């Protein structure tokens, strides 16, 4: 039988599966490549070049030098939560944003070595620069299916932190927060982010909604697939 237009031949599917690749089935992606991924790619390419370095200076195999963790697969996952943040529940709360990360692509044989949440609020320079902000991150409890509403009352606070500014990206190591460190393998990660001013005071009108619109949340997931990793050659 002739394959459907756009469908892969059995040979191509087998080749892709052998390489652990699952290409997009629709139109070509237009999502920009995050700078961290470009940087990691360039570092990895440089490390693969033949170098006349002594054995002790050679880069470790299956190790992501820049992130300081073992791994041979790095994924940049965008937040798939609600695009329009709901109105804050209380007067002092500036932003309450559900974050949802679909991790169903993880293979059972992969070992998680880093799960880093990045919050980028853009450059809200005019948004009370000396204000200081309190951030709270909670994990939504119980099962939740993709696209279904979150039960806001079922949450476990993972961290509360005061930051002086929202100008620079904020990073949170999710494994150190006790998430996903056990044998159970997550298929998704549902979080709730709350942001409120650290001090009493009037914020510029519309600043909280601007904060919600400019927020970009992503997850950097590093895994180690031992089958893809060759041990260093033994000296005889």
């Amino acid at each position, binding site marked *: 039988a002739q394959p459907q237009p756009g469908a892969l031949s059995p040979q191509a599917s087998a080749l892709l599966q052998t390489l*652990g690749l*699952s*290409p*997009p089935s629709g139109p*070509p992606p237009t999502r920009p490549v995050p700078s961290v991924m470009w940087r990691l*790619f360039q570092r990895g390419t440089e490390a693969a070049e033949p170098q006349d370095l002594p054995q002790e200076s050679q880069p470790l195999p299956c190790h992501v030098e820049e992130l300081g963790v073992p791994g041979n697969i790095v*994924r940049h996952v965008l937040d798939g939560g609600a695009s329009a943040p709901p109105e804050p529940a209380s007067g002092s709360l500036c932003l309450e944003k559900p974050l949802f990360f679909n991790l169903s692509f993880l293979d059972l044989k992969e070992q998680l070595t880093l799960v880093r949440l990045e919050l980028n609020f853009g450059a809200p320079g005019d948004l009370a620069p000396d204000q200081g902000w309190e951030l709270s991150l909670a994990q939504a409890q119980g099962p939740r299916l993709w696209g279904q509403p979150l039960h806001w009352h079922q949450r476990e606070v993972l961290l509360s932190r005061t930051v002086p500014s929202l100008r620079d990206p904020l990073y949170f190591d999710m494994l150190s927060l006790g998430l996903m460190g056990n044998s159970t393998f997550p298929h998704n990660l549902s979080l709730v982010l709350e942001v409120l001013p650290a001090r009493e005071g009037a914020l510029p009108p519309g600043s909280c909604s601007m904060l919600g619109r400019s927020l970009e949340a992503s997850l950097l997931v590093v895994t180690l697939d031992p089958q893809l990793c060759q041990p260093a050659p033994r000296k005889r």
Partner: protein
Amino acid sequence: RATHHSPDSPDPPCAARQLYINFQEVGWHNWIIAPRGFMANYCQGHCFFPTATKISSLNHAVMQSLMHSVAPATTPPPCCVPVKLSPISVLFYDNSDNVVLRHYEDMVVDECGCR
């Protein structure tokens, strides 16, 4: 596939030859971000001794070659195969719209030998 050649075969000795994998040619360019392609190389050439002693060869290959010289109909010559390879990293989109960086071992042939 091992093919039978006589020692005076016009084939050049076993060595790495240039092979460029072009992701556009194989239709993967829409979702592989980088590299656009890479020099993967391949091995080709004869493995007749003593010529093949200049390249990395197993003792078994020497003995197989010896047998091939006296009984070419029943013993094929050794094979010219990759003996040293190096890795590359590939940056691509997956089917969940994630940007993925994956490290692949044994993607580039650096050296060939008789096995």
